């Protein structure tokens, strides 16, 4: 019992791993980390790479994380994994794309209204045709 540590690997989208392990290995921003039970409390960012956990049965499990944070307390390790690859310029590009999409939507404003108008006209025409048809039926009788 004393020689295991509880490890959680979670991402924003799902819980990836949870259980007691003997050791956790990860790539921190400042270097390789090997975390054994009763490690000093530590908080650091992770580089994209593997997180390796050594299970109680001495088997090893590998998980790929594209960055994130690792929080270490004497009795537990929490890996907050990013699901997306994060870099400042990538984020910037994503932000730019979202802005452009908003501008595009605004530019489409006219066409949208046109479509709605056309649809209204179509409905009107169809109603007229239906009325005419009914009228014709009545006359036949």
């Amino acid at each position, binding site marked *: 019992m004393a020689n295991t540590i509880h490890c*959680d690997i*979670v*991402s*924003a*989208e*799902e*819980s990836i791993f949870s259980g007691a392990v003997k050791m956790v290995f990860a790539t*921190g*921003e*400042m270097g390789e980390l090997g975390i054994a039970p009763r490690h*000093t*409390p*530590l*908080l*650091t*960012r992770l580089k994209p790479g593997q997180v390796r956990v050594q299970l109680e049965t001495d088997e090893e499990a590998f998980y790929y994380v594209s960055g994130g*944070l690792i*929080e*270490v307390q004497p009795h537990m390790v*929490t890996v*907050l994994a*990013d*699901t*997306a690859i*994060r870099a400042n310029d990538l*984020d*910037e*590009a*994503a*932000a*730019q*794309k*979202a*802005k452009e*999409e*908003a501008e595009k*939507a*605004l530019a489409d*404003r006219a066409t*949208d209204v046109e479509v709605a108008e056309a649809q209204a006209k179509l409905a009107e025409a169809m109603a007229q045709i239906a009325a005419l048809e009914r009228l014709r039926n009545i006359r036949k009788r």
Partner: protein
Amino acid sequence: MSNAREITTKIRSVENTRKVTSALEMVSASKIRKSQDKMAASRPYASMVKQVIGHLSKARPEYKHPFTVEREEVKRVGYVIISSDRGLCGGLNNNLFRNLLMDIKQWQDQGVEVDVVTFGKKAGQFFKRIAVNIAASTQDLGESPEVTDLIGPLKVLTDAYKEGSLDRVVLAYNDFVNTMTQRPTLDQLLPLPPTDDEQVREIWDYIYEPDAVELLDTVLTRYLESLVYQGVLENLASEHAARMIAMKNASDNASSLIDDLKLVYNKARQAAITQEISEIVSGAAAV
């Protein structure tokens, strides 16, 4: 009998409509489950990030991250609006938009400008008709939204907030209470409401690599993203639930319409038969 034939055609068309609505109902019912599972799966991350933030803010009590500082004067407000991509889900989106409009109007009456970031087609279509500035928008998040899709639009707001051009950010989505109830919800995202997490009282501190301040920035950004992500998931579950209810009502209405039409049809048929008999009888009497 031409009248009777008209009625049968009508019955058949209503029956076809009912087939479609009941199929949609069943599809939504199964999707609710899936989106609920996703909601449950995303919760541990949010709670753990929250814990870390609690630790961090205790470690550096003298340092205030801009995200946590309440600003005295509010000149511009940002809204993150989450809506569905598709319709046929009852009043779900409209209820949310109505609440939002009231909130937005309150700000505008005070002379505060409003920026919006929209997720989902419906919000995009709705808010471009309103006198607000759309800062960013995204649509087609689909059945399994990913955090990746949220980063861009959110960064637009967080950057504006850091620069000081935005003073407050609000998240608007439909909270999934249960299958019958979805509550339009407006939550304040920025400045982050203080976390009164009093559990962490032990006197120990982390070793920080590289630095508590830098880490806090990363953690807070992640936290915001996970909040919005959860809002997206809640809204997705709400959408399916609302659609299921709407489609169930439509199917029920179709059924009662069919019953009424059948009654009319039978009456018409009976009248035709009666008429025919009386014609035959009177014809026979004439001979």
